[in-house]
């Protein structure tokens, strides 16, 4: 079996909980006509989620390797940068400024070149500026997308 039983059980129970909430809302919310289709879906959703949870709890779930500690540690810094970029920095600093910071942060975090290397920093900043220039050209000039400005732009 790939991944341990607990690894498979937790997501299976989360999916079951979501299915149960969907079914409960579909059968209790008014007007009932608006929830006719969600009611039909939720019956299958709950049935399949129950089956999936049973397989996970009894150790029959074999597909998917789960998330091990090493993967979580590697993913976490990049994920945090993405979350801060989208939920905080994009509107407070401005889309392009926040985008540039997120780009250079991710590049730096995952770049195998040591942080002490001056050339590494020059390359990171140069690539970020070129990439953000292309993004600005595409979205601001070509597509004329009005992005949140924030403190900078």
């Amino acid at each position, binding site marked *: 079996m790939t991944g341990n039983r607990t*690894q498979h059980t937790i*997501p*299976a129970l989360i*999916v079951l909980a*979501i*299915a149960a909430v*969907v079914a409960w*809302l579909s059968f209790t*919310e008014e*007007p009932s*006509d*608006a929830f*006719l*289709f*969600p009611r*039909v*879906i*939720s019956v*299958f*959703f709950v049935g*399949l*989620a129950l*089956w*999936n949870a049973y*397989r996970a709890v009894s150790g029959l*779930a*074999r*597909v*998917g*390797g789960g*998330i091990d500690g090493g*993967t979580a540690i*590697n*993913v976490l*810094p*990049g994920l945090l940068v*993405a*979350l801060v*970029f*989208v939920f905080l920095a*994009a509107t407070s600093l401005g*889309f392009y400024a926040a*985008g540039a910071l*997120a*780009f250079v942060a*991710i*590049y*730096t975090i*995952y*770049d*195998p070149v040591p942080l002490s290397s001056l050339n590494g920093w020059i390359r990171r900043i140069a690539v970020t500026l070129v*990439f953000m220039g292309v*993004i600005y050209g*595409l*979205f601001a000039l*070509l*597509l004329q*997308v009005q*992005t*949140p400005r924030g403190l900078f732009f």
Partner: protein
Amino acid sequence: MEFLGYFGGVFEPVAMLLLLGGTVGGLILGATPGLSPTMAVALLIPFTFQLSPAHGLILLGAAYTSTVAGGAVSAILLKIPGAPANIATALDGHEMARRGEGARALHLSFLASGIGGVIGVLLLIFLTPVLAQWALAFGPSHLFWMAILGVTLIGSLDSKSFVKGLLSGCIGLWLSTIGYDDMQGVPRFVFADALTGGINIIAALIGLFAIPQVMEMFAKGRRASAIEQVAVTKHKLSDSFREIGRSGRALSVGTVVGSIIGLIPGVGGQIAGLVAYDQTRKLSPHKAKFGTGHPEGVIAAESANNAMVGPSLVPLLTLSIPGSPTAAVLLGGLLIHGIFPGGDLFDRHPEVIWTFINSMLLGQILMVIFGIWIAASAAKIARAPMPIMAAAVLILAVFGSYSVQQSMGDVYVMLLLGIGMYALEKFGFSAAPLVLGLILGPIAEANFIQGSMIANATDGPLTYFFGGPLNLLLVALVVGSILYSFLSNRAENAALAKAMRAGE
């Protein structure tokens, strides 16, 4: 031969520019490990908003065609398939590259892709109008079952676990109901302000396909690339043409297998290359050479991959059922431009659809020309640094999803859906059925409600939804697809358990 009348649209300057840009860009994106064709097409959709529907579709079609072919570059040179469709290409292609025949393998791969692709698009041209005429007879109950069939087919055939595949489809169908109900104007499952307008399909597509790949790149950490360096030495193109001419068996098996698999809704290109490779090996007198760098392996796999592209659009354009996950994203692109697939598509938008299909035909030829041209510098493209790719895809995903409606809500939904999908994929769920549920959900619901009204006014829901040969056929296909997947899952599990017992 109606399509010939619409060839002029492809040669307009803007259309040609988009076709060239989509082809070259698609080849580069396809050659870059970690960027799948599905994700490339999803990221491109926001760039089509300001284009006419025909021009938007030309760009998406060119990217679809060339990313599949471009995936062979990294499969051959790095043994990292650019897309799941290129897995079989790596088996012999990389062995050829290791013994200094990388350029030869790339030439053969692009030539085979082009030939398979042209035949696939010809099938699209001649089969689609026929199937479209047949689809005109469909009523709401049939369209409802077709939408459900699309979800169950991809859910059961595209996933390793049929329970999780179908569950992914259910999640997609549920997500499609979030927001205000069209009939009653009532909010449904609106847990946050960002969900008031429902889940935007394009933002969702970007999140579901791009963010998990970004996180996969994060998961590799700071490791320096340990990819084997393979030098690409020059090879005479005329020799490659002669070799393709002599490889009729691999080419025809690949093209036929790819075309048939493309026509089956939901099966997609992932398996086309592998099935074609396997069949060619079985039919070859040189079975033992396969896997050791045999050119026929590359030709069979690549001709199948691109032969699949055209036919995968036949069920999409006529029945709204995509033949592959990338075709599902293309469906999102069609809907965003107000083009609804169906039996009368060729009557309502002939200029858009024929220009799009014709551009795919020309795109195959351009793909061969530019593919061979970039083959010389392919090694550099295929070795793009992972941290740059991860950062670039994330930024493109954020800007792309924001540009759809200029709403931060779409960006929040895109990122959260993407993170959720990454976690679900780690536990065996897959994005394709979820996306199909999300796209086909509104079609299924509209026809279900319309059918229920007709049923209430006539013979009742049971007779309306289950009566008549076409309803019965569609229900049988829905049940059959689930049963087939269930039984094959059981057989696989039994074989695995037997192997484990034998190993103890």
